[in-house]
């Protein structure tokens, strides 16, 4: 699994991490069901909603670490 970075769009993140939709939902981001996910990056989304991007990024990369 490719490492998730903050400049990836939500759509790219979903392609790389099948669990990402659920992780983001737990943070209150229902980006999985939103068409903006095709264009908006993780960083833009987090800034827009006032959420800590680095913390969420770490969470998104956790399964990748487990796989290695």
């Amino acid at each position, binding site marked *: 699994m490719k490492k998730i970075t903050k400049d990836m769009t939500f759509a790219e993140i979903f392609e790389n991490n099948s669990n990402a939709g659920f992780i983001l939902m737990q943070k209150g981001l*229902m980006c999985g*069901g939103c*068409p903006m996910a095709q264009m908006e990056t993780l960083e833009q989304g987090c800034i827009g*909603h006032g959420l800590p991007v680095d913390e969420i990024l770490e969470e998104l990369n956790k399964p990748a670490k487990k796989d290695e």
Partner: protein
Amino acid sequence: MNVVANKMGIYLDNAATTKVDNTILDELNSFSQYYANPSSQYDMAIKARKRIEQIRKEIADFINAESEEIIFTSGATESNNFALKGLALANPQKKHIITSMIEHPAIIQTCKALEKQGYKIDYIPVNEDGIVDVDKIKQKINTDTLVVSVMHVNNEIGTIQPIEHIAAICRQKGVYFHTDAVQSFRKIDIDVKEGNIDLMSISGHKINALKGIGVLYIKIGTRIKPLIDGGEQEFKLRSGTENTWGIISLGKAIKIFQEKEKILKLRDDLIRELLKIKGSKLNGSETDRIYNNVNVSFYGIEGESLMLLLDEDGIEVSTGSACSSHSLEESHVLKAINVPELYIHGSIRITLSNDTTNTEVNTVVDKIKERVDKLRQLSPFKLEDEI
């Protein structure tokens, strides 16, 4: 004359607000020369005063109240604030209020404000249909309880609450009962005497009248203090020059016939067709539901996106999810009735009116099917995981 020109005219957000009725606009036009302050003493003012008092009587008769029990306000938010805070001011020895978990923010936030002043508030849970737990209300009433406030019909899911049952308990226990009847007024017959209601909030713009007019019904003998001091209008309970036009619009609005059977049939058609979409769910009660409300959720999509796409199609509905706003709060009502997380975000509310047609309902069903399909193609939450 059309006040609001909307793109395609499929307006289905009548729980948010309604179109001002043409007969009301005509009525306002015909009365426009009586612009005097109704508290003045000359002929034009006396005519305005007479008209206001005539409407006060008509509204009172409409709910089986007395004229002096009808207090005009700026709307239901003020009425709700006035009811709870006005009672609190007049009865400082009682510090406990009971309400439900699914009230409108005008009640919830008023309760939160009172909580900061030392009041204890019990927010009573509801079942999966959204019906408040009456036994729990009964258990919670104690000697310190000032008022029980439970809405008549919920604004999001349209659930009709057993207010007469709750009011009877309150009357028996000597506790005030207030209801926010914004979503039920003119849809469901209300008899405040028979129903043991002490205070009731009403809004004009939800029933085709102007925005900025509302009523708080206050039963004679209720110990309450005003929130707005000034010229002592409205039986010294709500100062401020009367909103003559708003009052005239409300007086006319209560006479507009509601095609309940027609709307109910269209609503049921809409629910039946929308539930044919895989991964859809009706929020709220199937039976104890106001006749113009539909609230459905679609698995794995975002309600606000669906709402915006429908807006492109010229269809105006509302959603409990607000992802574009800074706050990511889910609907407190859908949370209270335990809607699963992957449905809670994908909810839309459709509220019909006399103007809704069969053709509109069919168009809406087709467009929703198309838009839900499109959004699901983009969603990482796959329907197969749900079904």
